[in-house]
Protein backbone atom coordinates (compact mmCIF):
# COMPACT_ATOMS: atom_id res chain seq x y z
CA UNK A 1 0.00 0.00 0.00
CA UNK A 2 1.23 3.45 -0.81
CA UNK A 3 0.46 6.04 1.80
CA UNK A 4 1.28 9.20 -0.05
CA UNK A 5 -2.15 9.48 -1.51
CA UNK A 6 -4.78 8.06 0.76
CA UNK A 7 -7.32 7.60 -1.93
CA UNK A 8 -5.02 5.79 -4.34
CA UNK A 9 -3.79 3.56 -1.60
CA UNK A 10 -7.19 2.05 -1.03
CA UNK A 11 -8.36 1.95 -4.60
CA UNK A 12 -5.25 0.16 -5.86
CA UNK A 13 -6.24 -3.01 -7.60
CA UNK A 14 -6.05 -5.85 -5.16
CA UNK A 15 -6.07 -9.45 -6.32
CA UNK A 16 -8.38 -10.51 -3.52
CA UNK A 17 -11.00 -7.91 -4.33
CA UNK A 18 -13.75 -9.97 -2.77
CA UNK A 19 -12.38 -9.64 0.70
CA UNK A 20 -13.11 -5.94 0.66
CA UNK A 21 -16.78 -6.41 0.98
CA UNK A 22 -18.45 -8.83 3.26
CA UNK A 23 -20.60 -10.43 0.65
CA UNK A 24 -18.80 -9.64 -2.56
CA UNK A 25 -20.22 -7.48 -5.26
CA UNK A 26 -22.18 -10.24 -6.94
CA UNK A 27 -25.46 -8.47 -6.52
CA UNK A 28 -26.17 -7.98 -10.18
CA UNK A 29 -27.33 -11.30 -11.57
CA UNK A 30 -28.26 -13.78 -8.88
CA UNK A 31 -28.87 -16.52 -11.45
CA UNK A 32 -25.60 -16.18 -13.30
CA UNK A 33 -24.39 -19.51 -14.64
CA UNK A 34 -27.58 -21.50 -14.07
CA UNK A 35 -29.49 -23.04 -16.99
CA UNK A 36 -32.65 -20.95 -17.04
CA UNK A 37 -34.73 -22.68 -19.71
CA UNK A 38 -38.05 -23.89 -18.40
CA UNK A 39 -38.23 -27.68 -18.85
CA UNK A 40 -40.89 -28.78 -21.31
CA UNK A 41 -44.17 -29.83 -19.81
CA UNK A 42 -43.87 -27.50 -16.84
CA UNK A 43 -46.75 -25.06 -16.36
CA UNK A 44 -45.03 -21.67 -16.70
CA UNK A 45 -47.64 -19.61 -14.91
CA UNK A 46 -47.78 -22.09 -12.08
CA UNK A 47 -44.01 -22.14 -11.78
CA UNK A 48 -43.88 -18.35 -11.67
CA UNK A 49 -46.46 -18.25 -8.88
CA UNK A 50 -44.66 -20.95 -6.93
CA UNK A 51 -41.43 -18.96 -7.15
CA UNK A 52 -43.33 -15.97 -5.78
CA UNK A 53 -44.56 -18.03 -2.84
CA UNK A 54 -41.10 -19.10 -1.76
CA UNK A 55 -39.58 -15.74 -2.74
CA UNK A 56 -42.13 -13.71 -0.78
CA UNK A 57 -41.57 -15.85 2.32
CA UNK A 58 -37.90 -14.97 2.17
CA UNK A 59 -38.40 -11.31 1.27
CA UNK A 60 -40.87 -10.55 4.03
CA UNK A 61 -38.93 -12.37 6.74
CA UNK A 62 -35.75 -10.69 5.57
CA UNK A 63 -37.52 -7.36 6.04
CA UNK A 64 -38.55 -8.24 9.58
CA UNK A 65 -35.05 -9.43 10.47
CA UNK A 66 -33.48 -6.30 9.01
CA UNK A 67 -35.60 -4.33 11.47
CA UNK A 68 -33.23 -5.68 14.14
CA UNK A 69 -30.40 -3.57 12.74
CA UNK A 70 -29.07 -1.32 15.55
CA UNK A 71 -31.48 -2.97 17.99
CA UNK A 72 -29.84 -6.29 18.88
CA UNK A 73 -28.69 -7.13 22.41
CA UNK A 74 -25.04 -7.50 21.40
CA UNK A 75 -22.94 -6.58 18.38
CA UNK A 76 -22.05 -10.17 17.55
CA UNK A 77 -25.74 -10.97 17.17
CA UNK A 78 -26.27 -7.78 15.23
CA UNK A 79 -23.91 -9.26 12.67
CA UNK A 80 -25.51 -12.70 12.81
CA UNK A 81 -29.06 -11.42 12.30
CA UNK A 82 -27.97 -9.26 9.39
CA UNK A 83 -26.30 -12.31 7.88
CA UNK A 84 -29.52 -14.26 8.02
CA UNK A 85 -31.51 -11.35 6.62
CA UNK A 86 -29.01 -11.08 3.76
CA UNK A 87 -29.18 -14.78 2.99
CA UNK A 88 -32.96 -14.62 2.80
CA UNK A 89 -32.85 -11.48 0.71
CA UNK A 90 -30.52 -13.31 -1.67
CA UNK A 91 -32.97 -16.21 -1.91
CA UNK A 92 -35.84 -13.80 -2.51
CA UNK A 93 -33.96 -12.09 -5.31
CA UNK A 94 -33.24 -15.32 -7.12
CA UNK A 95 -36.80 -16.54 -6.74
CA UNK A 96 -38.44 -13.29 -7.78
CA UNK A 97 -36.07 -13.03 -10.73
CA UNK A 98 -37.03 -16.56 -11.71
CA UNK A 99 -40.71 -15.71 -11.36
CA UNK A 100 -40.28 -12.69 -13.61
CA UNK A 101 -38.24 -14.57 -16.19
CA UNK A 102 -40.68 -17.47 -16.35
CA UNK A 103 -43.69 -15.16 -16.59
CA UNK A 104 -41.90 -13.39 -19.43
CA UNK A 105 -43.93 -10.19 -19.19
CA UNK A 106 -40.97 -7.84 -18.98
CA UNK A 107 -40.99 -7.59 -15.19
CA UNK A 108 -38.04 -8.13 -12.89
CA UNK A 109 -37.31 -8.75 -9.22
CA UNK A 110 -37.94 -5.10 -8.38
CA UNK A 111 -41.23 -4.73 -10.20
CA UNK A 112 -42.41 -7.81 -8.30
CA UNK A 113 -41.12 -6.65 -4.93
CA UNK A 114 -42.13 -3.02 -5.18
CA UNK A 115 -45.17 -2.83 -7.42
CA UNK A 116 -47.37 -5.67 -6.27
CA UNK A 117 -50.09 -4.98 -3.72
CA UNK A 118 -50.77 -6.81 -0.52
CA UNK A 119 -53.28 -9.20 -2.09
CA UNK A 120 -50.73 -10.26 -4.68
CA UNK A 121 -48.14 -11.34 -2.12
CA UNK A 122 -48.06 -15.11 -1.67
CA UNK A 123 -46.04 -15.52 1.53
CA UNK A 124 -47.25 -17.45 4.56
CA UNK A 125 -48.59 -15.25 7.34
CA UNK A 126 -45.96 -16.37 9.87
CA UNK A 127 -43.29 -14.14 8.33
CA UNK A 128 -45.42 -10.98 8.53
CA UNK A 129 -45.77 -10.97 12.30
CA UNK A 130 -44.28 -7.87 13.90
CA UNK A 131 -40.69 -8.12 15.06
CA UNK A 132 -41.49 -8.61 18.74
CA UNK A 133 -38.69 -9.27 21.23
CA UNK A 134 -35.75 -11.63 20.88
CA UNK A 135 -37.76 -14.53 22.31
CA UNK A 136 -40.28 -14.14 19.51
CA UNK A 137 -37.48 -13.70 16.99
CA UNK A 138 -35.84 -16.98 18.03
CA UNK A 139 -39.11 -18.91 18.15
CA UNK A 140 -40.19 -17.58 14.77
CA UNK A 141 -36.83 -18.19 13.15
CA UNK A 142 -36.65 -21.72 14.53
CA UNK A 143 -40.11 -22.56 13.20
CA UNK A 144 -39.54 -20.92 9.85
CA UNK A 145 -36.10 -22.33 9.17
CA UNK A 146 -37.03 -25.84 10.28
CA UNK A 147 -39.95 -25.79 7.86
CA UNK A 148 -38.04 -24.15 5.05
CA UNK A 149 -35.07 -26.46 5.41
CA UNK A 150 -37.38 -29.46 5.03
CA UNK A 151 -38.94 -27.90 1.92
CA UNK A 152 -35.65 -26.80 0.33
CA UNK A 153 -34.08 -30.18 1.02
CA UNK A 154 -36.72 -31.84 -1.20
CA UNK A 155 -36.62 -29.02 -3.69
CA UNK A 156 -32.98 -29.73 -4.59
CA UNK A 157 -34.47 -32.51 -6.78
CA UNK A 158 -36.92 -30.19 -8.52
CA UNK A 159 -37.49 -30.68 -12.24
CA UNK A 160 -36.84 -26.97 -12.62
CA UNK A 161 -33.05 -26.51 -12.66
CA UNK A 162 -33.25 -23.00 -11.25
CA UNK A 163 -35.38 -24.03 -8.28
CA UNK A 164 -33.02 -26.93 -7.69
CA UNK A 165 -30.03 -24.58 -7.74
CA UNK A 166 -31.68 -22.02 -5.48
CA UNK A 167 -32.63 -24.79 -3.08
CA UNK A 168 -29.12 -26.25 -3.04
CA UNK A 169 -27.69 -22.86 -2.10
CA UNK A 170 -30.52 -22.26 0.36
CA UNK A 171 -30.08 -25.55 2.19
CA UNK A 172 -26.60 -24.53 3.35
CA UNK A 173 -27.82 -21.14 4.46
CA UNK A 174 -30.98 -22.27 6.20
CA UNK A 175 -29.14 -25.06 7.99
CA UNK A 176 -27.08 -22.31 9.55
CA UNK A 177 -30.18 -20.25 10.38
CA UNK A 178 -31.83 -23.20 12.08
CA UNK A 179 -28.68 -23.93 14.03
CA UNK A 180 -28.50 -20.31 15.17
CA UNK A 181 -32.13 -20.28 16.26
CA UNK A 182 -31.90 -23.68 17.95
CA UNK A 183 -28.83 -22.69 19.97
CA UNK A 184 -30.49 -19.50 21.10
CA UNK A 185 -33.68 -21.36 21.98
CA UNK A 186 -31.61 -23.58 24.26
CA UNK A 187 -29.86 -20.58 25.83
CA UNK A 188 -33.12 -18.76 26.46
CA UNK A 189 -34.99 -21.84 27.63
CA UNK A 190 -32.24 -22.88 30.03
CA UNK A 191 -30.90 -19.41 30.95
CA UNK A 192 -33.04 -17.53 33.42
CA UNK A 193 -36.64 -17.83 34.49
CA UNK A 194 -37.41 -14.66 32.65
CA UNK A 195 -35.79 -15.75 29.40
CA UNK A 196 -37.64 -19.07 29.56
CA UNK A 197 -40.89 -17.11 29.85
CA UNK A 198 -39.98 -14.90 26.90
CA UNK A 199 -39.18 -17.93 24.75
CA UNK A 200 -42.40 -19.61 25.77
CA UNK A 201 -44.36 -16.49 24.90
CA UNK A 202 -42.53 -16.34 21.57
CA UNK A 203 -43.71 -19.84 20.75
CA UNK A 204 -47.23 -19.00 21.88
CA UNK A 205 -47.21 -16.12 19.37
CA UNK A 206 -45.91 -18.05 16.36
CA UNK A 207 -47.23 -21.59 16.77
CA UNK A 208 -50.80 -20.67 15.73
CA UNK A 209 -49.36 -19.96 12.28
CA UNK A 210 -47.68 -23.35 11.90
CA UNK A 211 -50.68 -25.27 10.54
CA UNK A 212 -50.72 -22.96 7.53
CA UNK A 213 -47.15 -23.98 6.70
CA UNK A 214 -48.23 -27.54 6.13
CA UNK A 215 -51.49 -26.81 4.34
CA UNK A 216 -50.59 -26.82 0.66
CA UNK A 217 -52.16 -24.48 -1.85
CA UNK A 218 -53.71 -26.41 -4.74
CA UNK A 219 -50.92 -25.12 -6.95
CA UNK A 220 -48.26 -26.59 -4.68
CA UNK A 221 -49.98 -29.97 -4.89
CA UNK A 222 -50.28 -29.76 -8.64
CA UNK A 223 -46.67 -28.75 -9.16
CA UNK A 224 -45.55 -31.39 -6.69
CA UNK A 225 -47.17 -33.98 -8.96
CA UNK A 226 -45.04 -32.59 -11.80
CA UNK A 227 -42.03 -32.92 -9.47
CA UNK A 228 -41.39 -29.19 -9.72
CA UNK A 229 -42.57 -28.16 -6.26
CA UNK A 230 -42.69 -29.72 -2.80
CA UNK A 231 -45.91 -30.62 -1.04
CA UNK A 232 -45.22 -29.54 2.54
CA UNK A 233 -47.97 -31.66 4.14
CA UNK A 234 -45.91 -34.86 4.57
CA UNK A 235 -43.05 -32.91 6.14
CA UNK A 236 -44.90 -32.20 9.38
CA UNK A 237 -43.56 -35.19 11.38
CA UNK A 238 -39.99 -34.23 10.53
CA UNK A 239 -40.72 -30.65 11.62
CA UNK A 240 -42.32 -31.78 14.87
CA UNK A 241 -39.37 -33.98 15.68
CA UNK A 242 -36.83 -31.19 15.26
CA UNK A 243 -38.88 -28.85 17.41
CA UNK A 244 -39.34 -31.51 20.02
CA UNK A 245 -35.59 -32.16 20.18
CA UNK A 246 -34.75 -28.49 20.55
CA UNK A 247 -37.42 -27.86 23.17
CA UNK A 248 -36.38 -30.88 25.20
CA UNK A 249 -32.80 -29.64 25.25
CA UNK A 250 -34.03 -26.16 26.12
CA UNK A 251 -36.25 -27.51 28.89
CA UNK A 252 -39.20 -25.74 27.30
CA UNK A 253 -42.61 -27.18 26.84
CA UNK A 254 -44.34 -26.01 23.68
CA UNK A 255 -47.58 -24.23 24.51
CA UNK A 256 -50.87 -25.75 23.38
CA UNK A 257 -52.32 -23.40 20.79
CA UNK A 258 -55.25 -23.25 18.44
CA UNK A 259 -54.28 -22.65 14.82
CA UNK A 260 -55.25 -19.18 13.69
CA UNK A 261 -58.24 -19.14 11.39
CA UNK A 262 -58.39 -18.77 7.63
CA UNK A 263 -60.80 -16.93 5.34
CA UNK A 264 -62.96 -19.65 3.80
CA UNK A 265 -59.87 -21.85 3.74
CA UNK A 266 -57.69 -19.19 2.23
CA UNK A 267 -54.54 -17.74 3.83
CA UNK A 268 -51.17 -16.26 2.86
CA UNK A 269 -50.56 -18.48 -0.16
CA UNK A 270 -53.86 -17.16 -1.60
CA UNK A 271 -53.02 -13.54 -0.83
CA UNK A 272 -55.10 -13.39 2.34
CA UNK A 273 -52.80 -11.89 4.96
CA UNK A 274 -52.72 -10.43 8.43
CA UNK A 275 -53.18 -6.70 8.72
CA UNK A 276 -49.49 -6.34 9.43
CA UNK A 277 -48.40 -6.96 5.84
CA UNK A 278 -49.96 -3.79 4.48
CA UNK A 279 -47.87 -1.59 6.74
CA UNK A 280 -44.73 -3.55 6.00
CA UNK A 281 -45.26 -3.08 2.26
CA UNK A 282 -46.18 0.58 2.66
CA UNK A 283 -42.79 1.12 4.21
CA UNK A 284 -40.83 -1.12 1.87
CA UNK A 285 -42.39 0.21 -1.32
CA UNK A 286 -42.81 3.92 -0.51
CA UNK A 287 -39.68 5.27 -2.15
CA UNK A 288 -39.78 3.00 -5.20
CA UNK A 289 -43.39 3.96 -5.85
CA UNK A 290 -42.77 7.64 -5.17
CA UNK A 291 -40.79 7.98 -8.38
CA UNK A 292 -41.70 5.03 -10.62
CA UNK A 293 -39.59 6.36 -13.51
CA UNK A 294 -36.45 6.36 -11.42
CA UNK A 295 -33.68 3.78 -11.72
CA UNK A 296 -31.62 3.00 -8.67
Amino acid at each position, binding site marked *: MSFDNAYEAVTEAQPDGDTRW*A*FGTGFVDPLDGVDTTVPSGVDREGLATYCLMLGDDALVLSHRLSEWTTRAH*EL*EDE*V*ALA*NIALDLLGQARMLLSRAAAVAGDGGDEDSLAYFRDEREFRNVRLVELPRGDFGRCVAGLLVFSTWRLAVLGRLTHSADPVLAAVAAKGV*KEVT*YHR*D*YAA*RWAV*RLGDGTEYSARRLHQGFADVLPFVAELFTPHELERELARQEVAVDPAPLRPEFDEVLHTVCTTAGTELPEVTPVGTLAGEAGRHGVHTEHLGYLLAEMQSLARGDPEARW
Partner: protein
Amino acid sequence: MTDSTDRNPEPGQVRTPDTAWPLFEVFVRGKRGLNHVHVGSLHAPDERMALHNARNLYTRRNEGVSIWVVRAEHITASSPDEKDPFFAPSGDKVYRHPTFYELPDDVPHI
Protein backbone atom coordinates in the same frame (compact mmCIF):
# COMPACT_ATOMS: atom_id res chain seq x y z
CA MET B 1 -23.37 -15.35 43.48
CA THR B 2 -21.70 -18.51 42.35
CA ASP B 3 -22.37 -17.59 38.75
CA SER B 4 -20.10 -14.61 38.74
CA THR B 5 -17.26 -16.40 40.55
CA ASP B 6 -17.53 -19.09 37.90
CA ARG B 7 -16.97 -16.58 35.21
CA ASN B 8 -14.18 -14.71 36.94
CA PRO B 9 -11.98 -17.40 38.42
CA GLU B 10 -8.80 -15.32 38.47
CA PRO B 11 -8.34 -13.54 41.75
CA GLY B 12 -7.69 -9.88 41.29
CA GLN B 13 -9.16 -9.76 37.85
CA VAL B 14 -11.28 -6.73 37.25
CA ARG B 15 -14.92 -7.69 37.53
CA THR B 16 -17.03 -6.99 34.56
CA PRO B 17 -20.76 -6.45 34.80
CA ASP B 18 -22.68 -9.70 35.24
CA THR B 19 -24.13 -9.64 31.78
CA ALA B 20 -20.82 -9.16 29.99
CA TRP B 21 -19.70 -12.23 28.09
CA PRO B 22 -16.11 -13.45 28.34
CA LEU B 23 -13.49 -12.54 25.77
CA PHE B 24 -12.31 -15.12 23.24
CA GLU B 25 -9.27 -14.90 20.99
CA VAL B 26 -9.83 -16.07 17.42
CA PHE B 27 -7.33 -17.95 15.22
CA VAL B 28 -8.10 -18.71 11.60
CA ARG B 29 -6.47 -21.05 9.11
CA GLY B 30 -7.27 -19.35 5.81
CA LYS B 31 -6.53 -22.39 3.71
CA ARG B 32 -4.89 -25.77 3.90
CA GLY B 33 -1.14 -25.63 4.24
CA LEU B 34 -1.17 -22.50 6.39
CA ASN B 35 -0.97 -22.06 10.12
CA HIS B 36 -3.77 -20.74 12.22
CA VAL B 37 -3.22 -17.03 12.63
CA HIS B 38 -4.55 -14.76 15.32
CA VAL B 39 -7.10 -12.41 13.76
CA GLY B 40 -8.75 -10.70 16.68
CA SER B 41 -11.15 -11.32 19.49
CA LEU B 42 -14.82 -11.30 20.33
CA HIS B 43 -17.22 -11.81 23.19
CA ALA B 44 -19.48 -14.81 23.53
CA PRO B 45 -21.32 -16.56 26.32
CA ASP B 46 -19.75 -19.94 25.51
CA GLU B 47 -17.38 -21.77 23.16
CA ARG B 48 -20.03 -22.80 20.62
CA MET B 49 -21.31 -19.30 20.27
CA ALA B 50 -17.76 -17.98 20.04
CA LEU B 51 -17.12 -20.27 17.07
CA HIS B 52 -20.38 -19.21 15.48
CA ASN B 53 -19.60 -15.53 15.91
CA ALA B 54 -16.01 -15.96 14.76
CA ARG B 55 -17.23 -17.53 11.57
CA ASN B 56 -19.61 -14.63 11.00
CA LEU B 57 -17.20 -11.92 11.82
CA TYR B 58 -13.72 -13.00 10.83
CA THR B 59 -14.33 -15.37 7.93
CA ARG B 60 -17.65 -14.11 6.64
CA ARG B 61 -18.81 -17.69 6.88
CA ASN B 62 -16.33 -18.92 4.36
CA GLU B 63 -16.60 -22.69 4.60
CA GLY B 64 -13.45 -24.72 4.47
CA VAL B 65 -11.47 -22.51 6.77
CA SER B 66 -10.61 -23.75 10.20
CA ILE B 67 -11.19 -21.64 13.28
CA TRP B 68 -9.89 -21.91 16.81
CA VAL B 69 -11.37 -19.93 19.64
CA VAL B 70 -9.86 -19.86 23.08
CA ARG B 71 -10.77 -17.91 26.17
CA ALA B 72 -8.35 -15.01 26.50
CA GLU B 73 -7.85 -15.82 30.17
CA HIS B 74 -6.46 -19.25 29.24
CA ILE B 75 -3.62 -17.88 27.18
CA THR B 76 -0.19 -17.67 28.74
CA ALA B 77 1.93 -15.08 27.05
CA SER B 78 5.49 -13.91 27.02
CA SER B 79 6.68 -10.45 26.20
CA PRO B 80 6.78 -9.83 22.45
CA ASP B 81 10.36 -8.75 22.92
CA GLU B 82 11.88 -11.78 24.64
CA LYS B 83 15.15 -10.02 25.32
CA ASP B 84 13.41 -7.22 27.10
CA PRO B 85 14.94 -7.31 30.57
CA PHE B 86 12.27 -5.03 31.96
CA PHE B 87 9.34 -7.24 31.38
CA ALA B 88 8.33 -7.28 34.93
CA PRO B 89 5.34 -9.08 36.36
CA SER B 90 5.77 -12.68 37.32
CA GLY B 91 2.90 -15.11 37.06
CA ASP B 92 1.67 -13.51 33.86
CA LYS B 93 -1.12 -15.95 33.37
CA VAL B 94 -3.20 -13.74 31.18
CA TYR B 95 -2.83 -12.24 27.81
CA ARG B 96 -4.84 -9.14 28.46
CA HIS B 97 -5.13 -8.86 32.12
CA PRO B 98 -6.58 -5.43 32.69
CA THR B 99 -4.78 -4.95 35.97
CA PHE B 100 -1.44 -5.90 34.48
CA TYR B 101 -1.21 -2.68 32.61
CA GLU B 102 -1.58 -0.53 35.67
CA LEU B 103 1.62 -1.88 37.13
CA PRO B 104 4.40 -0.25 35.12
CA ASP B 105 2.92 3.23 35.46
CA ASP B 106 2.58 3.34 39.18
CA VAL B 107 4.91 0.69 40.54
CA PRO B 108 7.81 0.02 38.23
CA HIS B 109 9.02 -2.90 40.27
CA ILE B 110 11.46 -5.64 39.38
